[in-house]
């Protein structure tokens, strides 16, 4: 079953086709990576899925429901979480309160755990529990990225969209991140924009390659690695 499907999804900025006519299917439980050169339309594409960026045309289906007309906050309430490419946290609030805000927004949730328990649990999973009283803005850049991931975890999403989550993380943190994503797979469907090819190859079940706003190729990491069009457009022949 597909958790997310798009048909003919497009975004035009006066004359520029940022994303054009993308048909996309993401099965339940998969870890999907979206890769592509800078300006390929990756962030615009996931922005349209989450409702942050209005689409110009096309339809989006989420969990068997047409959501193209829903505002962002309603899509999030249906079970999406979104982490920003440029870290976006509540810098003046405590680390704990950042995650509690994420957990609290699901007031209708069937989850029996309290907001506080879910916040603590999410912080433990990214190894930030001992920093929960700190002001979020005082954390290092890498820890702020992890905090944003914890905010996503606290929402217990069906679909977790991560826009370049490993940017600024140390090698050990990246390793821990890949293990964390793998442990979520199954319950949570993950859509990952990533430039770090090691992360993509290690974490993704399946890869979509965007180029100039269009789907260039789709396949398993192995297929993408050997796809000559992709190599030409993005990876460069040296990586083959």
């Amino acid at each position: 079953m597909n958790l997310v499907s798009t048909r003919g999804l497009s975004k035009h900025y006066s004359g520029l086709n940022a994303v054009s006519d993308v048909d996309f299917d993401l099965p339940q439980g998969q870890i999907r990576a979206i890769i592509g050169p800078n300006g390929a339309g990756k962030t615009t594409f996931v922005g349209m899925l989450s409702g942050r960026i209005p689409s110009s045309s096309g339809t989006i289906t989420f969990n068997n429901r047409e959501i193209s007309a829903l505002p962002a906050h309603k899509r999030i309430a249906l079970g999406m979480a979104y982490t920003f490419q440029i870290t976006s946290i509540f810098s003046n609030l405590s680390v704990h309160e950042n995650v509690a805000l994420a957990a609290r927004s699901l007031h209708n949730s069937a989850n029996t755990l309290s907001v506080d328990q879910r916040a603590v649990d999410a912080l433990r999973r990214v190894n930030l529990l001992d920093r929960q009283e700190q002001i979020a803005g005082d954390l290092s850049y890498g820890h702020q990225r992890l905090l944003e991931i914890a905010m996503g975890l606290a929402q217990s999403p069906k679909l977790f969209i991560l826009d370049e989550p490993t940017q600024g993380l140390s090698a050990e943190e990246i390793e821990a991140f890949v293990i964390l994503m793998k442990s979520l797979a199954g319950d949570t469907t993950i859509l990952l924009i990533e430039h770090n090819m090691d992360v993509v190859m290690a974490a993704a079940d399946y890869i979509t390659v965007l180029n100039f706003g269009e789907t260039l190729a789709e396949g398993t990491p192995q297929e993408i690695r050997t796809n000559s069009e992709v190599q030409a457009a993005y990876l460069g022949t040296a990586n083959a």
Partner: protein
Amino acid sequence: MTKKSKALALHLFTIASLAGVFFILPEYHSGIVARVLVLTIYAMGYNLLFGYTGLLSLGHALFFASGMYGLGLAMQYLHLSPITGLIAGLAFAAFVSTVIGFLALRTSGVAFMIVTLMFAQAGYLTILLLGEYTRGDEGFVIKQSQRMISGFDLSDATNRYFVALALFSVCLLIIGWIVQSGFGKTLVAIRENEERAKMLGYNVQLHKWFAVIISGTMSGAAGAIYALLFGYVGATFATVQYSIFPLLYVLLGGAGTTIGPLIGALFMFYLIDISSQFTNAYLLIAGVALIFLTLYAPQGLAGVVRKHVIRWLP
């Protein structure tokens, strides 16, 4: 003690001190404090929108005047009792803030400031236009005989002080409760990072609207109580000046703190009261004090205390 119970203890202590201080203060000063308490209700309402939600309105005099005229006109022409008059004032302020909030929140930032300012000016001009009933700038007096609740005289200095204190206490406890609630924390989240709050699934627009309604209604309550306790209703209270006062009190006292408005209002009143004993240029002294505070304590007095001394200050 949890943060929540510490906050409650602080609020109860504040209320108890204000009750105790009445028996020490000379009558002149208890009169000032009664007035300050009513204007603090106004500033607390303003603070919910400005300090906690991050929306700067320049038109809150419209809400203050809505409560004041809602009560005043209802008592004057419909001969309502003080209590039903107060309800009329609250209802009218709630109605006005619901409508104005809906319209003004279609804008944000500087446009929001200008739109609220313009609505308030329109309100002021409406009061002048309806001069036949409102008596315009001159205003009208609510007679002492009307300001009685079954023998309890609201114009008596002692009664007035304790009624002002009681209503102030109710509002302080309401604000204290709101800012500790999930709703209040969401308002802070919107202030801190609106885009993030939206992408966590919060209906930002609806939260802002509720904030305007609560803030406007509390400001209206202050206007109605002012008219009731001091017996006068006039168009001055709808002018720009009265939109700026709560902003000043909140900035001085500490935006986004529950007791900041009280501190700011007291400070401002006494600054003017004391300096005017020495010079006619008391506004100059007030202005200089304001400049120093913005330079050296931009978070306001309670904000400084929160930053350096009491981290849990609500």
